[in-house]
């Protein structure tokens, strides 16, 4: 024991943690825990939990690290943990970027120990952070450095603050491996958004209890995490509604309550992560404590994300309190709390910045943190005054009164947090006010139902409390790890057995459906909506196109956050964004060039050569070929094939001008067709439509109104006038007010295209293209097709392009769902076939 303490002077090792590595007792415990750990990772794989983290791909590696780690002498374990993390970084990033990552990380730790004044060390760290921030925002773009800033800083962003704080206050680690393993924490590589583990806790809890207890705690928390994530999926699938679906009081309540309930994903992921760290012998404390049952603001602050609260207390609350206790004589607690909540807001933006690269200063965040901060401060001051009052009387209350009081407080807190959470997770304050205004609409039956549900919840809460009190259930709920072993084990076995089709097929259809819902890892449309707005979802998901963990596959390929940010210039008209001519964007994982006309295409002559047939392609990012090379875009492939196989002595050449660009919809195309397209003497114009054509037009029109762009067309001006929409209204409200006009606008757009084509002696072509994410609405498809045909469009149907292929095979990534190279090849094949069949109609070519 003394020998071990030479290596880890700050740790009080538990005597049982020092069992001989191969003692029968330890081996029994180890194999039991290993079996459970394998089951946990098997379930993670089978149920597709947090797929983008990479934990599924590296599950065997995690098990291997756990096995080796558990059988090496304790003094080598921190070093082994660090090296396991480093190996994974090299596997994920390659030698060059991996070395950048590790050297910069180690430099930050080294700087913290430089033999210079502490303030100079902090200054150098801040300077380095500033440089990394320039790379993170892509202000300076060097793929390896940007990648380092993106993936390394989240490992250091809070831990370095804690580490410097401990060094300043004299806690200098004598074992350097503990320091490096703290920063390069093995499980952290899978989840960049990680709980703030305190340094002192990390080193002091290392094997402070028998290993079996720590392993079992880890397993228990991982299982709890998985159950939370399952609950999240079920909530999303069954109850989640988008802001646009809030129409009355019941749907408003549903929107708010479900929004807050989605926090189970955060607690699920965090429980899983902390459990994973426990598997390596760190006896970490609880991170969430039944936060839905908080009875007051202070109680909630105690229960929700406890690691964050402890970090804030340690680094800000106590230092501020001690610094100002002689200056601020009155209301010191209130002053400190409000300052701390102001800092909490800043720290949330800081965290969001490093993980997503977005600088977010939303008024809604300020309101959220200030309201929460004020409530917790007021509650704290009341508690302080109550405890300070010498003569306070303790009233004797009946148990029943206490139960009612408690459940009413729980329901009240839950409802308050639901309101606040919906505010925080709605894109803008105007949107939130608009949604809340829907609450005015309800009928008496709905009101009676809501009141009945509320009363039922209160009585159920009282009943549960009586049950707990009278039947000693509380003891069972806080049972020791050994007692819950059976429960954990059976949960794991049930979940594992469900994942085998042989077993599942013998179960009722409802259970089979439940499994398919629980195991579907791809986020549905509503989840995506929630993720777009939700603070924590943004952190868990990370950037669009990037994964959340270093273990994720897409890490190997550096993806710029806004790859085409410099590809456009802005105009004060409906088109708004136009592609710059003669572009050649470098630093992407694909080439991107535009020609001298400012379209993503090869160079063409301005004047159409004799014997050439020209087709203008009007589309959005799908048709522009977001994420693939210029010559991989389906338009380029189809054009090349047409020129190879369809030309003859009369039709010497086919040219398809790709006018498509990201964010272009029907209205932008109307403007282009009126101003640009026919400059190039087009023979035909192909307009590309997708599912939810009307919805997309409305969303785009609302954005144009919001941006106050000149509408130019009297028809659109009339719609604005008639509908009464104003630019200051929320997007939600504008969209809702425009929706009744969606069909009229869409029809007007099609008429405009047909009219301009007729005027310029060109053939209008309507192409329906299936996206990689949406299901085709057959009714809508038939309506649009029929309408286009009635206006004289030649129609092309590109449905069923991808055949039976899994959608993931034809998408760039899970988050960037544009077609990949294979997707474009398939589209090109079908597009070419259709053009060939309808050649005579489209190009007026004699067969």
């Amino acid at each position, binding site marked *: 024991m003394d020998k071990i303490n030479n290596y880890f002077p700050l740790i009080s090792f538990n005597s049982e943690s020092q069992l001989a590595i191969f003692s029968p007792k330890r081996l029994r415990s180890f194999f039991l825990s290993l079996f459970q750990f394998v089951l946990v990772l098997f379930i993670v794989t089978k149920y597709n939990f947090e797929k983008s983290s990479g934990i599924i791909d590296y599950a065997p590696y995690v098990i291997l690290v756990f096995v080796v780690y558990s059988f090496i002498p304790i003094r080598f374990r921190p070093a082994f943990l660090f090296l396991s993390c480093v190996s994974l970084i090299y596997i994920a990033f390659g030698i060059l970027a991996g070395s950048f990552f590790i050297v910069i990380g180690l430099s930050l730790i080294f700087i913290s120990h430089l033999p210079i004044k502490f303030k100079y060390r902090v200054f150098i760290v801040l300077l380095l952070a500033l440089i990394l921030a320039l790379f993170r925002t892509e202000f300076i773009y060097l793929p390896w450095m940007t990648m380092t800033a993106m993936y390394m800083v989240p490992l250091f962003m809070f831990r370095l603050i804690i580490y410097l*704080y401990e060094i300043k*206050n004299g806690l200098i680690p004598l074992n350097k491996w503990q320091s490096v393993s703290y920063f390069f924490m093995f499980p952290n590589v899978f989840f960049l958004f990680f709980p703030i583990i305190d340094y*002192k806790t990390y080193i002091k809890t290392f094997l402070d209890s028998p290993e079996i207890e720590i392993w079992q705690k880890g397993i228990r928390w991982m299982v709890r995490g998985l159950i939370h994530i399952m609950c999240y999926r079920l909530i999303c699938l069954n109850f989640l509604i988008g802001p646009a679906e809030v129409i009355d009081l019941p749907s408003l309540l549903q929107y708010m309550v479900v929004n807050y309930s989605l926090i189970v994903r955060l607690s699920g992921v965090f429980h899983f992560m902390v459990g994973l760290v426990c598997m390596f012998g760190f006896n970490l*404390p609880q991170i969430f404590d039944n936060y839905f049952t908080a009875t007051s603001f*202070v109680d909630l602050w*105690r229960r929700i994300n406890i690691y964050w609260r402890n970090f804030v*207390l*340690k680094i800000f*609350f*106590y*230092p501020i*309190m*001690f*610094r100002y206790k002689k200056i601020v004589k009155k209301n010191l*607690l209130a002053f400190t709390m409000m300052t701390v909540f102001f800092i909490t807001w800043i720290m949330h933006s800081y965290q969001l910045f490093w993980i997503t690269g977005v600088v977010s200063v939303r008024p809604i965040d300020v309101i959220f943190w200030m309201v929460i901060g004020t409530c917790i401060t007021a509650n*704290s001051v009341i*508690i*302080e005054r109550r*405890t*300070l009052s010498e003569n*306070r009387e*303790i009233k004797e209350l009946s148990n029943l009164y206490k139960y009612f009081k408690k459940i009413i407080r729980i329901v009240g807190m839950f409802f308050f947090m639901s309101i606040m959470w919906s505010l925080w997770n709605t894109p803008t304050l105007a949107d939130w006010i608009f949604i809340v205004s829907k609450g005015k609409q309800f009928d008496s039956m709905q009101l009676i139902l809501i009141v009945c549900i509320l009363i039922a919840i209160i009585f159920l809460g009282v009943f549960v409390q009586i049950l707990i009190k009278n039947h000693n259930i509380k003891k069972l709920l806080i049972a020791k790890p050994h007692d819950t072993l059976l429960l954990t084990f059976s949960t794991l076995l049930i979940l594992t057995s469900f994942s085998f089709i042989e077993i599942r097929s013998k179960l009722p259809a409802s259970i089979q459906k439940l499994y398919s819902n629980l195991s579907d890892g791809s986020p549905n449309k509503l989840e995506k909506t929630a993720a777009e707005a939700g603070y924590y979802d943004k952190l868990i998901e990370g950037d669009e196109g990037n994964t959340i963990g270093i273990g994720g596959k897409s890490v190997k390929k550096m993806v710029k956050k806004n790859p085409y940010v410099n590809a456009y210039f802005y105009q004060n008209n409906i088109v708004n964004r136009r592609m710059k001519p003669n572009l050649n964007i470098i630093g992407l994982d694909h080439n991107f060039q535009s020609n001298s006309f400012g379209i993503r295409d090869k160079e063409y002559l301005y004047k159409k050569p004799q014997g050439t047939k020209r087709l203008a392609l009007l589309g959005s990012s799908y048709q522009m070929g977001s994420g693939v090379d210029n010559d991989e875009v389906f338009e380029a492939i189809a054009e090349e094939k047409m020129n190879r196989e369809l030309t003859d002595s009369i039709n010497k050449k086919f040219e398809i001008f790709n006018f498509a660009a990201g964010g272009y919809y029907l209205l932008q195309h109307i403007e282009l067709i009126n101003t640009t397209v026919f400059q190039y003497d087009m023979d035909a114009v192909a307009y590309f439509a997708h599912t939810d054509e009307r919805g997309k037009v409305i969303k785009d029109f609302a954005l144009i109104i919001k941006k106050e762009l000149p509408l130019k067309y009297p028809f659109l001006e009339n719609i604005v006038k008639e509908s009464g929409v104003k630019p200051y209204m929320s997007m939600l409200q504008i969209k809702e007010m425009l929706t009744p006009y969606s069909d009229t606008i869409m029809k007007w757009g099609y008429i405009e295209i047909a009219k301009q084509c007729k005027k310029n002696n060109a053939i209008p072509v309507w192409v329906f293209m299936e996206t990689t994410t949406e299901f085709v609405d057959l009714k809508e498809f038939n309506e649009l097709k029929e309408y286009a045909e009635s206006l004289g469009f030649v129609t092309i149907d590109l449905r069923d392009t991808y055949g039976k292929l899994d959608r993931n095979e034809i998408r760039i990534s899970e988050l960037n769902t544009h077609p990949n190279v294979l997707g474009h090849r398939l589209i090109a094949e079908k597009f070419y076939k259709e053009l060939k069949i309808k050649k005579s109609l489209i190009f007026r070519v004699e067969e």
Partner: protein
Amino acid sequence: MSSNVNEIKETVREFVKNRFLKNSDGLELTYSTPLISGGIIDSILTMQLVVFLEQTYSFEFQAHEVDKDNLDTIEIIAAFVVKKQNG
């Protein structure tokens, strides 16, 4: 002036009991009852305990000393007070 460890323990126990546990039905407070990790005192009450210790035993806390390592049980608190008094 340094105080006897047992006296400190008893004084702190009385303070915690009267100040923080008036409302708790039948909770037994021993010298080893975990105060912070057991959830008996939170950050607000911890600060009251700190002020009490500073005033009673005439020494000053540093911000980083306000943690579980120095304040989790009455035994630990007494040891910390003695350590501070002895400089």
